[in-house]
């Protein structure tokens, strides 16, 4: 009965359900403060998940996101630390704050495009290319940072991750805006249609006179850009830059995308649901912490809930049919 209801509602239903249950179980759960925390905790996964959605939509995958975040964050930090002591007069702010951020974005996008070129042009399977990049970018991060944790940054650099606008954390706003933009691109632009078509039937797209390779290349660039943004956010949130940053992000992001209902084989999906996917995992983790469930049991419960969630989401489809 409840099943059927949840089933029809799909991922939304499961979100509501778990929120309801947790509110009952823990008095601390349904507080503005706590909900803000959750949104903060999932923001970075969401941002990376958005880029990942583009990639998976085309039938690809990007395992290198975590390492690219690490590479971007240390590049940004090292450059900042190198420039900060110098004096650039009125350009000070521009050179010391804006430039490093731009470099983070450039680094991320560049690494992503390398993935893209190798996958789209050299036809290296996405899994291998991004696995290789995962290793290379991580090594790069260690080398650039000389294995050191770099820390304490001025407000300008940390604003995205740590700042607030009218009391609302900037990071939450940013992640929602990014989801919005992505949804618009995929839903309303011609490029968006090409992304869907690429995943749905590459040959058809090509024979329709579209440069499929270029589209494929671009989605990895987008994923890399998302990593660049995420690295800026992470630097703000932690106020440190570490070469070990972002380990395991790939699984979190991919999970968010697929829990959100995007097919791993490409061609279908909604970027907005990626946000829900990330939220679901975040809410469960948060709830289990509030309930002080033993870490061991937490692992079991989280695993079970992720599976159950996707299972119910499938029920919905059959319920519709």
């Amino acid at each position, binding site marked *: 009965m409840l099943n059927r209801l949840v089933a029809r509602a799909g991922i939304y239903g499961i979100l509501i359900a778990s929120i309801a249950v947790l509110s009952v179980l823990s008095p601390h759960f349904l507080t503005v403060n706590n909900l803000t925390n959750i949104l903060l905790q999932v923001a970075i996964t969401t941002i990376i998940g958005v880029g990942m959605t583009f990639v998976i939509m085309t039938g690809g995958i990007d395992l290198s996101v975590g390492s690219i975040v690490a590479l971007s964050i240390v590049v940004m930090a090292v450059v900042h630390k190198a420039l900060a002591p110098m004096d650039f007069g009125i350009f000070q702010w521009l050179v010391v704050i804006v430039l490093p951020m731009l470099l983070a974005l450039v680094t991320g996008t560049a690494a992503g495009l390398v993935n893209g070129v190798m996958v789209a042009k050299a036809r290296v399977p996405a899994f291998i290319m991004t696995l290789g990049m995962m290793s290379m970018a991580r090594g790069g991060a260690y080398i650039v940072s000389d294995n050191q944790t770099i820390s304490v940054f001025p407000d300008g650099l940390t604003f995205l991750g740590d700042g607030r606008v009218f009391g609302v954390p900037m990071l939450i706003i940013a992640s929602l805006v990014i989801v919005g933009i992505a949804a618009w691109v995929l839903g309303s632009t011609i490029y968006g249609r090409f992304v869907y078509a690429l995943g749905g039937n590459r040959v058809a797209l090509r024979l*329709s006179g579209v440069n499929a390779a270029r589209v494929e290349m671009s989605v990895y660039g987008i994923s890399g850009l998302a990593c660049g943004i995420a690295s800026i956010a992470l630097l703000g949130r932690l106020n440190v830059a570490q070469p070990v940053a972002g380990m395991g992000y790939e699984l979190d992001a991919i999970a968010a995308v697929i829990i959100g209902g995007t097919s791993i084989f490409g061609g279908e999906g909604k970027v907005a649901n990626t946000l829900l996917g990330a939220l679901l995992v975040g809410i469960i983790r948060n709830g289990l912490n509030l309930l002080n469930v033993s870490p061991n049991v937490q692992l079991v419960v989280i695993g079970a809930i992720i599976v159950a969630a996707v299972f119910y989401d499938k029920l919905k489809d059959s319920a519709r049919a």
Partner: protein
Amino acid sequence: MPVEPGLVTRKLGKSFPGVRALDDFDFVIRPGEVHCLLGENGAGKSTFINILSGAFAEYEGEIEIDGQPVTITTPARAKALKIATIHQEQCLVPAMTVEENIHLGDEPRRNGFMVDKKAARKAAQEVLDRLGVKIPLDARVRNLSTAEAQMVEIAKALVLDARILILDEPTASISDRDTAELFRIIRELKARGTGFVYISHRLQEIAEIADTVTVMRDGRKVGELTAEEASADRIVEMMVGRPVGELSAPPRNVETDDIAMAVSGLSGNGVIDASFALKRGEILGFAGLVGAGRTDLMKMVFGALPVAAGTISVDGKDVVIDSPRAAVRLGIGYLSEDRKGEGLVLKQAIDWNIALASLPALSNGPVVDRKRERAAAEGHRKRLSIATPSLSKPTGQLSGGNQQKVVVAKWLETGCRVLIFDEPTRGIDVNARAEIHTLIRALADKGSSIIVVSSDLPELIQVSDRILAMSEGRITGEVAVARNARQAEVMELMLGGTRA
């Protein structure tokens, strides 16, 4: 010398490993003319049009348009030259909607990079109306029947309003009524000066629509005829390379009341209360328009689609068929109308595919007996004249018609006692088609019972002993004594009229 208007190809050629698919090929597409291209399966027709549509980055020879030499190495280039193509293998994105598919590649734009959804819907609806088909714009292509998808394919080519329109077997899987609509539009466009390349294996269509006919064999041009000269026999002779006798076989009469399979009150998937009995050794034809429900009915009988109500009995015993496995175990086989999506594993070899449904019979215990597998496949290759340098070639590299032959072979190999053929000769050349008809009859004579679903009425009338017509999910009536059944009679039933 005066430049020829339209598109001219000179010494076009293309090779694939082990095959000279196209060789020294000259062809002319004149404005306002329908130029039919005929040839046996594997003759090189699709290869030729693939070149014109930019599907190949490399080819030999020249192409001229209005006297200007051009090179067509990408689909985009072909499009720029206003050449539109309906490919033999459906080129749609299953997960996307009808509207999205129709516009894929040149969506109506709004301020640069956004899709103008209003305009897109309007244009798509217009073209569908022109074709006189009722398919919801938001339906996902994967939920369409093969025939409906084919109509979308046609619509997709029409929105481009190209100056040269290439159709590779557009009617292979659509009903006569849709074909008529298509021809009406072709004539319309002809009048406006569009030039056509038209490929088909249905000779009666040629007579109807062709202005010029070019016949090819083994990648080479055999000859060019005017519509007048192009009599069926002449064409077939040129295609095959030798005179071919009368194709239609003598009528057979099934003098038995021994029921092999009986279906009663079957409903579900849009099929309503379908009942029919299939005699042993009988060939039962099913006629119907697009979406009449024939495929869905057969898929239910075969256990591939869930059944809402109704019973099935085999050899008089009521049976439960809840999966294709159950059906096959009862000796029922089903050849799908969608060879690519439901029939073949394209990456795998030809003999591999032929054996797939009969492995236990071709194995010693759990181990597949390669020799027996080979032998079996070799037999079918000869009988169905599957054109390929080797049986270990990936099936995906075969020409469309030869792929179809492989699926047919796969089901012949199973030796099922009840065989359901859904559009069995889709895309198969006249000669092979006759061959398959003969095979079907031979099987029936040996006591197998066979159902043939076909949107090609003459074919049905040729091969069946009895024809059932379906319309909007219901069986609307039956025409006995196949050979002298009048087309009009069946048509009437297909359109929904019932008779006692």
